[in-house]
């Protein structure tokens, strides 16, 4: 079972994010939880979220990179769902599961460098997310990052989406 936590406030305006999501929808045993669709009023049903995670092997966090982090609703999801006693210090309900971070950025790969617009290599921004997974006892897999998806052109984007699809299909079959 794979649970894909998707956070995009305006999915119909998205290019990169939508291409990625469309590519993996329909893969057997992948269940997409679209946070902005589920909770447009920003009131998360934490119980339902936790229940969805219980039987999952792989947790995916997929979203556009906003201000070097997650969109507001995914941050709220971290705060409300991954609480003490369930996610850490107690049950450790997510311990042993795999965690995959999938994100799209506005800046190109070269902007993420000490000399680039964003002043740091991309790894600097991976660390906080990876640490959330580690703190909950999950294995943080190599993240999938699509840089400047709106400028890369349809075919390049499709190649990235296809490799995402292949990864999930393989994961789904090998961890059936």
């Amino acid at each position: 079972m794979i649970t894909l936590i998707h956070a995009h406030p305006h999915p119909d305006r998205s290019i990169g994010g939508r291409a990625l999501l469309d590519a993996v929808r329909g893969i057997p045993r992948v269940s997409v939880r679209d946070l902005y669709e589920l909770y447009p009023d920003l009131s998360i049903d934490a119980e339902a979220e936790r229940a969805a995670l219980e039987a999952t092997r792989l947790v995916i966090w997929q979203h556009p990179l906003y201000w070097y982090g997650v969109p507001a609703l995914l941050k709220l999801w971290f705060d409300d769902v991954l609480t003490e006693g369930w996610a850490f210090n107690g049950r450790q309900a997510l311990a042993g599961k795999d965690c995959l971070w999938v994100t799209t950025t506005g800046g190109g790969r070269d902007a993420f460098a000490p000399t680039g617009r964003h002043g740091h290599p991309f790894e600097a921004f991976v660390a906080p997310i990876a640490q959330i997974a580690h703190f909950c006892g999950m294995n943080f897999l190599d993240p999938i990052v699509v840089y400047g998806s709106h400028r890369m052109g349809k075919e390049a984007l499709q190649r990235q989406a296809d490799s995402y699809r292949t990864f999930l299909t393989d994961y789904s079959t090998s961890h059936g």
Partner: protein
Amino acid sequence: MADASLLSDTLLYLGAAVVCVPLAKRLGLGSVLGYLIAGVAIGPWGFAFVGDPESTLHFAEFGVVLMLFLIGLEIDLNRLQAMRAAVFRGGSLQMLGCGVLLAAAFFLFGLPWIGAIVAALAVAMSSTAIAMQTLTERNQLGTATGRSAFGILLFQDIVAIPLIAIVPLLGTGERQAGSSLWIATATALAAIAGVIALGRFVMRPLIRVIATVDVREIFTAFALLLVIGVALLMTLAGLSMGLGAFLVGALFASSEYRHALEGDIEPFKGLLLGLFFIAIGMSIDVGLIGAQPLRLLAIVVAILALKGIALALMAKRLGVPQRERWLFAALLAQGGEFAFVVLGAARAADLLPGTWAPLLNAAVALSMAATPLLVIAADRWATRHAAQREDDVIEDAHAPVIIAGFGRYGQIVGRMLNLDGVAATVLDHDPDNIELIRKFGYKVFYGDATRLDLLEAAGAAQARLLVIAVDQVEDSLKLVDLAHTHFPNLQLVVRARNVRHWLELAARGVDTAERETFESALRSGREALEKLGMPRYEARELADTFRRNNIATLTAMRPHFKDQEKLVALARSGLNELEENLRRDREARATRAAQEWD
């Protein structure tokens, strides 16, 4: 011409009531005393406008019949169930206590013992009409005192039925000697069974048919036909008309048409009660007062004193607050309308020798007339008592929140507060609501929330917040004004019925008014957009835009809301502005979509 005399009689009754009742109310005596005085004034012993005692009697009896029908309607099984303890514990205690004392007194006055017991039980019952009318006028139906009193009255209504049925059988008169006694019993039982069967198997299906015809006055006519028909049937069987009417009422109390019947009879109810009291006034035998003044006075005093003392003594056990125990006694000390029926039956059965029957009748009527005065005296006692021993009066622990109006709107607010453990005092004027609300542990005051005394009783001076969720716009505004004038520290949360109401509230400085349909309409708007394919979060953003714009427009209207023209102009410009905003939004979205990176 008979018609003319009917009309002139009606003119007389209405005229006397219109003159006497406002006068009595102005003098602080209550409407009941006003009606009674009107009755005495036009009766055979006053101006003798209504000279024929026979017709007066019939008239009075019809008042009682209709009254009993209404009482019957009030007693449905569910309500009885909910107040079982108050009814059966309080009621039996009262009948037993008052009955024993009165029976002993009547026996000492020289009545034979059977007569003494029957008279005692007859007089031990109180006047539902007077007590309920007084409680309603004072907004005290919902208080501990009101509930205990109502329970006792209900119990009396129930025991009156077997009492009225049994009394004729106790008769020693030759008419009912031997086998004819059994025939009478059998006829009585058969008649009661007949009425119940008729009601259940004929009338209830019939009323359904009548109701589907959907002509309102025909429904009312049917209700009256029912009462009068059954009353006459009972007379044929030798039973009281009142009992028949009561039975029909009770039969329909549990039917789905109870509220319809009540609603249809409601407009008549006040007047019928008035008529009933006028009839009581007319039936006071002033001649007897002249002939045997001391004996009559002794009986009246005995009734009021013995019942009053017994009631005051049992008040504490029934949960009546200390300072209201004499009020409780005064409310129930008088003899009631059932007394006339039982006494009539007792006289017919030869249980009351000599002038006892008319004497007791007059005594009951006088005790009724004395009730408003006794209530005033009890009030005086309570205030003096409270003033003298101020330290003893335990201040009620007042809830921090008062909710005025506990319909669909107020209930949601109240339940949310309850979820957080915040206690609320509820003001509502729907008696059906009240029992239910009370079951859930709210402190409920029955009555018109726009009355200052009720607000004070509910603890408005101590409360932190008043939630105004009443249905009527005028009531809501009146309540806001009252709160601003008398309880300036009370914070307000107000339900606005519509834009105009919202503007009226805003003009009074209320900035926490919510239009009752606005938020739910925005929800529906969002859902509509979602069904058409808009992502949910975007639909929410659009609703947020709409809300902000709408409130800004309303706020701009505030200073001009009395100026209709300007209002329309502002509304139009607000609409334009909204359109403009939305158009800009749409364009922005289109251009943004072209340069979106995520």
